[in-house]
């Protein structure tokens, strides 16, 4: 756990430097949340590095001259990291389609760092259309060609299949970790599992998979006792991540967080992606047909808010904690539709607002405690 905590707190990405010492010609590619097919980065022998802003650890004084203040903190702090050369170890950046701010940030990025490799990946939003899969394949191929040129190493079908398999294993380990929390929440706190997953942001995939497997085994051996707590689901923190102390404050206020969308991009698919056929088609089809309900891509077929009440009850949760980043528009729009369906289904919820650079959690603790009391005090 100590290792995980340090690697997350280290915004200068020293872990990437150590990886590069082990891979002399190796390149590292930064991926902005929420979902990027990092298999493509691994397939060209590069290290995918997830960028989750700088939390409260740095002051914003350069980014202000490029970006307004009424935008989320993750975009401002990531730009600050770039402008203060703290991301020097990264050789390129991939911005996926999340929202207008992230999309425009890719433009600000390529203007301020003209020599760096910057790619904006347009993930298909009309996933009901027959043309969505071919388009996704074309986008993935365009990205892959760019990455190959950058690393000077084309990706063979075998490289792609190996990358898919190592990602499948990583996602399986992540699902196992979250299953411990879902079935026996007293054995593994949400902030602990968050740290374990987040450590993977700067780690090689297979190393992270082994790291998670050890953690799952260790968690199962713990002898902790179950406490009288409210079982909840946490929704809305899929891109800008809340401070770890905020997650702890929610748990200490009397909650077991069975399910959440923290670090959603690291575990985007529940089912493994087939590694036998054409790898790009497999990745594209997975994105178009299996992506989870999320605020960053238009849902396929049904409306995602209709499925929410049933999925809450299925895992035995009693309430929902909406935990949205200040100024995060996609999360705030969806929260209204979700709350409509929760009210109709009689499932209680509370909405708290956070910023990655928050240092005071009194109001959050009071709100969640009140929420727990309003349910436990029947």
């Amino acid at each position, binding site marked *: 756990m100590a290792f995980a905590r340090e690697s997350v707190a280290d915004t200068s990405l020293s872990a990437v430097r150590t990886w590069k010492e082990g891979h002399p010609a190796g390149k590292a590619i930064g991926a902005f949340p929420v979902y990027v097919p990092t298999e493509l980065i691994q397939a060209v022998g590069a290290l995918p590095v997830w960028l989750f802003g700088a939390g409260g650890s740095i*002051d914003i004084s*350069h980014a*202000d001259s490029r970006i307004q203040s009424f935008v989320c903190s993750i975009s401002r702090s990531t730009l600050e990291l770039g402008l203060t050369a703290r991301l020097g170890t990264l050789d390129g950046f991939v911005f996926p389609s999340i929202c207008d701010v992230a999309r425009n940030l890719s433009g600000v990025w390529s203007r301020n760092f003209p020599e760096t490799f910057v790619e904006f990946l347009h993930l298909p939003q009309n996933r009901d259309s027959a043309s969505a899969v071919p388009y996704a394949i074309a986008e993935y191929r365009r990205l892959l060609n760019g990455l190959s040129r950058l690393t000077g190493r084309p990706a063979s079908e075998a490289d792609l299949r190996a990358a898919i398999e190592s990602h499948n294993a990583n996602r399986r380990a992540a699902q196992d970790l979250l299953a411990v929390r879902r079935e026996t929440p007293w054995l593994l706190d949400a902030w602990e599992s968050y740290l374990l997953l987040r450590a993977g942001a700067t780690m090689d995939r297979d190393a992270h998979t082994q790291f998670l497997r050890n953690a799952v085994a260790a968690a199962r051996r713990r002898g902790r006792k179950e406490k009288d707590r409210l079982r909840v689901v946490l929704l809305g923190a899929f891109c800008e991540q809340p401070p770890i102390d905020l997650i702890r404050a929610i748990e200490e206020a009397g909650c077991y967080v069975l399910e959440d969308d923290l670090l959603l991009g690291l575990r985007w698919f529940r089912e493994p992606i087939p590694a036998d056929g054409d790898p790009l088609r497999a990745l594209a089809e997975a994105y178009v047909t299996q992506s989870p309900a999320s605020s960053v891509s238009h849902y396929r077929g049904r409306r995602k808010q209709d499925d929410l009440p049933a999925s809450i009850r299925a895992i035995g949760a009693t309430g929902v904690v909406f935990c949205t980043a200040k100024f995060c528009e996609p999360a705030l729009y969806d929260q209204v539709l979700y709350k409509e369906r929760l009210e109709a289904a009689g499932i209680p919820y509370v909405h708290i607002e956070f910023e990655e650079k928050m*240092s005071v959690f009194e109001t959050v603790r009071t709100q969640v405690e009140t929420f727990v009391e309003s349910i436990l005090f029947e």
Partner: protein
Amino acid sequence: MNVYVAGADIGSTTAKVVILDGEGKIAATSLGPTGASIVEAAQRRFKEAIEAAKIDEHEVEFVVGTGYGRFKIPFGHTQITEISCHAKGAHYLFPGTRTIVDIGGQDTKAIGADERGEVTDFCMNDKCAAGTGRFLDNAALAVGLSIDEIGPISLKAAKPLRITNVCTVFVESEIMSHMARGEKIEDVLRGVHNAIAIRSIALMRRVGITPEVTFTGGVSRNVGMVQALEGQLGTKVNVSPLSQYVGAIGAALYALERARGAPPTELVAEASG
């Protein structure tokens, strides 16, 4: 016959008047809180300045008003914004000035100036970071100290806190929570000064920071603020006991130009007032 001109800078918190003689030497200055009535505050300061300069009101040939209350100055001939006045005044005090920062009651201003004190570019804070000058008064109130004490006390900080918030109102609730958790006053105050310095420097970056940097306006009297700015910038910052009068000095210099026959460049007085 010696000609006199005046500049009146009626800010949201303090009102200042400066009288210059024909050669542009400062004949007198006066300063006091703006309070609830701008017209009274302007007239009182103007009277004080005239008496200090031992001259008669009609000897003042031209008066330029600036600051938030500039349109309400009864004795003003014309109005010029505080951007132009701060540039001109800062150049008067420190001819090497190229970048000016003024942390005012309502707005924080960063101004780029050329070798003649003309404005090359300027930028004012965006909405979320408004009211920084006023905020320091509120911070002093929140910790039960006077505005003049918080600067020196902040210098005694051992481990300054990081206060990361943009919005001044929210920073205040952050101060209360730190105090409730028993943090030392000087550490909290140093955190506040640093937060304001970082934000002001971010604004200065928009116009570009070229030495010499001159810190103008009332807040420049706060040594804690000067230290914080110099600490974050890594370079010296020009401050003078007259820094608080820079707006009024600039206005008086424009009045002098106008008295010497320069054509007007600003809008005719506001019709609606």
